[in-house]
């Protein structure tokens, strides 16, 4: 893309957004709908209607520096040294450091930003997937097909043949994760010390991971769903297209109940109870599978509106992290539904894709990579069974009264700000942090409000927190995403003078039942930075 093209495109979008905002104020939605058309919800009237209502009801409060990004005049830009910008160049970057000279209509800003991210989502989350190729190699594809048939028939595939076929991809994926997460060299050397082969310790470990079946979901089933995920124009369409009516029902009820998805589903069917909402989602997707992708886009865009309604919001990086997290979670949940559905259907999905060996290599690589990346204890390789995409929690598992949820959210934020996010994740996953850290112990013993402890149970670490763990298992990822703007604001504070502004940020939304930090703000700033680094990684697929 040439620099002048970029400027013209940007100006056109800003102008269209300003016009559409005025029209929308008069009750005319055509301009806004046209601007948002790359979002998939825009081609479904019911979904588009929800978005228009949300736009009218929500006012964005972007920070001063983010207002200028779409609206600063052409003359304010420094011309870059390279005229021919790559297509994927992050086009917001050109406006960094500009300031808005005049007042900006919040609705115009919102529409322009949504239009910008619509293009980004279309380009990066859909079009980019169509560029992938999976080579067909008849001999290897046949061998692979036979092995998959064994997995589905017996839950076990010839260990020697499987590991011989996939030792290389497993080795490369593990190596990437070992380096990316900075495992100690002793672990790296131990696992990578020999050339990749069916004989290596790494191959044994990776195969055991496929055999292992936590909650009756062995690793090979997850790999199978990842193979199916490669089979369509993009992962969401491929997964939705693979669900049978029962799977669609589970996915629909999941959407009606889970975290912020419940808010989105409620906007679509306010007059119904949760079961009816789930049924409606299922019915809509059954009639028109493309509607599901529209719903994913609607949910993603509504989350952006919620983020931007916070004061001093609007950081495009935060927005992109939110988009990636929401879409990644949707993919993860759809895979989980597919994995727990009909094995025959899953098998048919695996067998139907061309280039099966190449797709299996990629699916297995992604599985092994995530398994190593999500390992909490980097002093040793991950154990088999640590990776499992959880299915939606049913409403009966949401354990707190509505009035106690704010306390749970606040306590979770406190844990993150005290630098205990890794321990929290370990505790949620396994019920133990694996150590006896006193800071963690204090957070559980003294900072946790009594309402969040199990009623009638001793409040020890083992027995008194089942409801809290259940809630966190379903909600932690979304709670962290919800706190991204606040964490980012805290991370930007100068550590030496963080206390007063930090307290102001926290007090904006802090449940009084949880003790507000009174000191240790330099460490809080550092903890916020570490948490952001962890949450903002671009390859984040599932923040459980």
């Amino acid at each position, binding site marked *: 893309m040439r620099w002048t093209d970029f400027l013209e495109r940007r100006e056109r979008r800003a102008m269209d957004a300003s016009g559409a905002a005025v029209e929308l104020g008069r009750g005319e939605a055509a301009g806004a709908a046209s601007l948002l058309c790359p979002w998939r919800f825009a081609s479904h009237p019911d979904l588009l209607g929800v978005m228009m209502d949300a736009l009218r009801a929500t006012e964005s409060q972007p920070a001063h520096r983010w207002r200028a990004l779409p609206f600063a005049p052409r003359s304010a830009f420094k011309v870059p040294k390279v005229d021919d910008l790559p297509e994927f160049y992050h086009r917001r970057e050109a406006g960094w450091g500009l300031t808005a000279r005049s007042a900006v209509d919040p609705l115009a800003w919102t529409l322009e930003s949504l239009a910008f991210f619509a293009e980004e989502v279309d380009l990066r989350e859909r079009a980019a997937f169509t560029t992938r190729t999976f080579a067909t190699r008849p001999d290897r594809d046949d061998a692979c097909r036979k092995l998959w048939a064994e997995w589905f028939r017996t839950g076990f595939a010839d260990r020697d043949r499987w590991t011989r076929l996939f030792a290389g991809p497993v080795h490369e994926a593990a*190596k990437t994760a070992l380096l990316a997460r900075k495992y100690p060299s002793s672990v790296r050397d131990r696992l990578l010390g020999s050339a990749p082969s069916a004989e290596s310790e790494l191959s044994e*470990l990776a195969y055991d991971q496929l055999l292992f079946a936590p909650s009756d979901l062995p690793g090979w089933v997850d790999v199978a769903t990842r193979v199916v995920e490669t089979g369509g124009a993009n992962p969401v369409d491929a997964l939705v297209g693979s669900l049978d009516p029962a799977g669609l029902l589970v996915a629909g009820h999941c959407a009606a109940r889970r975290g912020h998805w419940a808010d989105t589903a409620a906007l679509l069917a306010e007059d119904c109870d949760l079961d009816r909402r789930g049924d409606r989602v299922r019915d809509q997707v059954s009639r028109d599978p493309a509607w599901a992708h529209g719903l994913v886009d609607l949910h993603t865009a509504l989350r952006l509106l919620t983020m931007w309604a916070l004061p001093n919001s609007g950081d495009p990086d935060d927005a992109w992290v939110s988009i990636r997290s929401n879409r990644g979670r949707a993919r993860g949940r759809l895979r989980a539904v597919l994995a727990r559905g009909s094995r025959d259907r899953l098998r048919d999905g695996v067998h139907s894709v061309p280039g099966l060996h190449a797709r299996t290599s990629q699916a297995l690589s992604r599985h092994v990579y995530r398994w190593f990346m999500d390992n909490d204890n980097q002093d040793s390789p991950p154990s088999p069974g640590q990776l499992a995409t959880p299915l939606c929690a049913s409403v009966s598992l949401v354990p707190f009264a509505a009035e106690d949820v704010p306390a749970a959210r606040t306590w979770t934020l406190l844990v993150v700000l005290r630098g205990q996010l890794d321990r929290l994740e370990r505790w949620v996953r396994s019920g133990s942090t694996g150590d006896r850290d006193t800071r963690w112990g204090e957070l559980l013993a003294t900072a946790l409000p009594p309402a969040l402890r199990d009623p009638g149970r001793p409040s020890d670490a083992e027995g008194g927190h089942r409801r809290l763990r259940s809630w966190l298992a379903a909600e932690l990822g979304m709670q962290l995403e919800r706190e991204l703007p606040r964490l980012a604001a805290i991370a930007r504070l100068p550590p030496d003078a963080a206390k007063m502004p930090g307290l102001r940020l926290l007090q904006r939304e802090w449940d009084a039942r949880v003790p507000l930090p009174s000191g240790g703000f330099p460490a809080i700033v550092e903890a916020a930075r570490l948490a952001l680094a962890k949450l903002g990684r671009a390859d984040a697929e599932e923040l459980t």
Partner: protein
Amino acid sequence: MKRQVTEGELVAYVGGMLDPGEAERVRAELSCSGSLRQQLAIVIATRQLAASVEAANDPPREARWHIPSPGAGITAFGVRAQVQAAVFGGSAGPADGVAAVVRPLGRFAVTLDPSAGDGWVIVLRERSDGWGVVFPPEKELALRASELPLRGRDRVVDLAVGVRPGDERWCVVVFDGEIDWTLGENERWEALKARLAKRQVPVASLRLRVLADDDDA
């Protein structure tokens, strides 16, 4: 604040682990930033140093021993027993899968809890040419778990490392099938190998680090 491409993302990019859209974004950032390209060169060099890349596509051979990684949770595979190792006269190992650091010829023990059953006790050790059975060497010396000495409720397999400094890998299996001693070395263990591959037998493996004589344990 502009979020830069992180080192972790660069590593994932080089390893092909990013979704296509994210990979394109990193590629675009690389095309615009010389310093990022320098970082990329370091990542690639580190990756090349970490290990070789080419997959060995070795031809099929006779059925292999599939030994679990040290520390893998064997009870996870539906096997009730977990075999534990205890080491005498050494020190606890570093947290990289080494069970213990021991002197040459140092002793160690593997304990079998009662749920391991009363099958044949098979001990394997990894040699330069792969895993091999070191016990029982012949039919007359074979032992069932119930014939081993008791320590509390557990049975104890006493073993000793060799004299050469370096890491040693050992494995103990309790096999409740029959061993056909009339068969040759390669065929005798086929049934056990098949059960072991499916993780259907109580098994544990451990790695021990043998010190040179002049090192401190």
